[in-house]
């Protein structure tokens, strides 16, 4: 009974982690950017979806769409206003650009966080679930919203896989992650590929944020922990490796759920962080890292 409970709850939270981390790792794999405003964009999506339904009184579906659209816009702003100017700057030496992008996205994330707290307070907000009610799965009472969350996450990840592996645009993205110079020699505009990747990222982060808002709720305080959790999942899985991130998301999700059920909810995140430290010692490139 307890084992089944852990299996079900762990799956939902792991799927959500996986979706959140996929976009994060995609951006890194393709353009080498570690986007530290990731948590802020997820929270922004959830808060926008909440505000749309509780202030503008639109229905759940439109609310969720507004949330995802907000994340898409925020993601493109992050690229055009923060990342691209740094990458194109002639005054910043090339070898320092990575650190500038890190700092720039971190500050941008904090700005979004403070704006959310200023306009909507730092109290948690929850998005009205699209499906409500519970079902019994072999005696375990499971919210339908939890099943919905897991299904949407898996579906979106599958669509992403198809997009990357089966479409022309996806192949260009894949090529850019392997050899950016080669892609430009083939006559493709690298900036266009980056814009596409940031747009995909925005949609992924938006869906993850809205689902998180429905499943657990978010507040401006969640910004830091969300970025940190995506970051550690991606590092654990191997920077830039999408399949590594997926595996790592499930490892972290189940480890947390096991700890919460079998040890104490208060120590939930500790074993996953210890594992991260251990992996860094034994296998610095992560589970499926290339380098």
């Amino acid at each position, binding site marked *: 009974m307890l084992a089944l409970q852990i299996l079900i709850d762990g799956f939902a939270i792991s799927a959500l982690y996986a979706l959140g981390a996929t976009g994060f790792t995609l951006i890194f794999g393709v353009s080498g950017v570690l986007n530290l405003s990731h948590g802020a964009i997820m929270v922004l999506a959830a808060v926008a979806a909440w505000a749309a339904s509780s202030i503008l009184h639109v229905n759940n579906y439109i609310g969720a769409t507004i949330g995802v659209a907000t994340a898409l816009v925020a993601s493109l702003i992050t690229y055009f206003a923060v990342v691209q100017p740094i990458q194109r700057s002639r005054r910043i030496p090339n070898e320092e650009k990575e650190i500038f992008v890190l700092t720039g996205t971190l500050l941008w994330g904090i700005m979004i966080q403070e704006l959310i707290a*200023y306009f909507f307070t730092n109290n*948690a907000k929850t998005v*009205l679930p699209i499906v409500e009610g519970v079902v019994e799965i072999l005696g375990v009472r499971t*919210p339908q919203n939890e099943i919905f969350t897991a299904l949407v996450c898996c579906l979106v990840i599958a669509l992403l896989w198809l997009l990357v592996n089966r479409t022309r645009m996806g192949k260009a993205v894949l090529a850019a992650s392997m050899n950016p110079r080669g892609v430009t020699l083939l006559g493709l505009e690298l900036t266009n590929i980056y814009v596409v990747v940031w747009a995909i990222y925005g949609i992924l982060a938006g869906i993850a944020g809205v689902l998180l808002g429905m499943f657990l*709720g978010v507040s401006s*305080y969640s910004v830091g922990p969300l970025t940190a959790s995506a970051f550690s999942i991606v590092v654990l899985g191997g920077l830039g490796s999408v399949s590594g991130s997926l595996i790592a998301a499930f490892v972290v999700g189940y480890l947390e759920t096991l700890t919460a059920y079998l040890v104490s*909810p*208060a120590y939930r995140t500790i074993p996953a962080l210890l594992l991260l430290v251990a992996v860094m010692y034994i296998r610095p490139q992560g589970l499926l890292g290339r380098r």
Partner: protein
Amino acid sequence: MIAAFPHSRSWSLRALVAATALGFGASSALAADPIKIGVIAEAQAIAGASIPQAAQMAAEEINAKGGVDGRMIEIVTYDNHSSSADSVRAFQRAVNEDKVHAVISSYISEVVLALMPWASRLKTPFITPGAASNEITKAIHADYEKNKYTFHGYLTSGALARSVCDAAKDLLVDAKKMKTAVIMSEDAAWTKPLDVGYEECLPQIGLKVLDHIRFSPDTTDFTPIFNKIEGAKPDVIITGISHVGVQPTVQWKNQQVPIPMLGISSQATNSTFGKDTNNASDGVLYQGVSGPGVAVTPKSVPFADGFKAKFGNFPSYAGYTSYDEVYFIADAIKRAGSTDADKLVEALEKTDWEGTIGRIQFYGKDDPFTHGLKYGKGLITGLMLQWQDGVQTSVWPPEIAKAKIKFPAFIKVTAN
């Protein structure tokens, strides 16, 4: 850091010039000098945001009636970003630069405990409108001469536990024949004495404590906690939550945990709680000192309505206490005939003020809860409210109850 030094020097120079100028003009301006009250609060948190707003409202009302012996009350506000370090800096600035005569600050016990030594060092009367830890009054009792500048303007955790138990006896044990409970509280300074109080008083009223779950205040997923509680099969969950509120409430509803929740849930005292939880709040029972439309005293309803008209939402619990505090500080200054810190402390100790939350008096030097609010019938008893159909409704004590308790369909009220 180095660049900051000339800046700060020019500031202190300017302050010196200003102080000298003030000194020259002091004799002629004395009668009309404003009484300054510093308000340091959590502007981004809903519970904290009401603190400066309510204080401002009280000051405007007092000033409209001519102030205190002709002196106007001026509220100087500071945002502490829910941080102890920011609060200490704000306190120093309030006293040293803005020359406030008293400080009202914070609903967070950790912040209040950090400010206490500064109230002593800078000899400035200091009142909290919302912190609850017993450690505050304990420290005042243990070293009265040093800590006498601090007043606890809200119920201590011990009194809160008492208030919850008194209500639970009438509402759950006597009316619903409940026999068992699980305590669910966040790990923070204020819940330690609260839990001790619960463990002591719940068995006394006839509720056996089956389990006691303390969790980290940054918990986001409450599924394992609710599952563990359900496993113990209690009749009721007794809560002690303040830093969290929206998330456990929404997950309680989404997971359809069939057990009612009653206790302290600070976020539920905010009138925006229904909206923040998409009305998952329906059925939640929470302890309060006052609430919208509840006439605890003749002053309660006019204040809450006036606040809503001015700021668009009803005040949080700390709004009621903050409003009262400005009034009884003004009253104490009037009685003391001075803003001198020691005279003001003496006058505050003799406070007997009917505010929005009841009749306010402080325990004395020899009581273990020195400078804490006196709890009991005829003074402050607190009340129990319930979210019903998206509205906060008083359900206890019977004199001011507006409705009977009721629960959403997924709750099974049983006596196991």
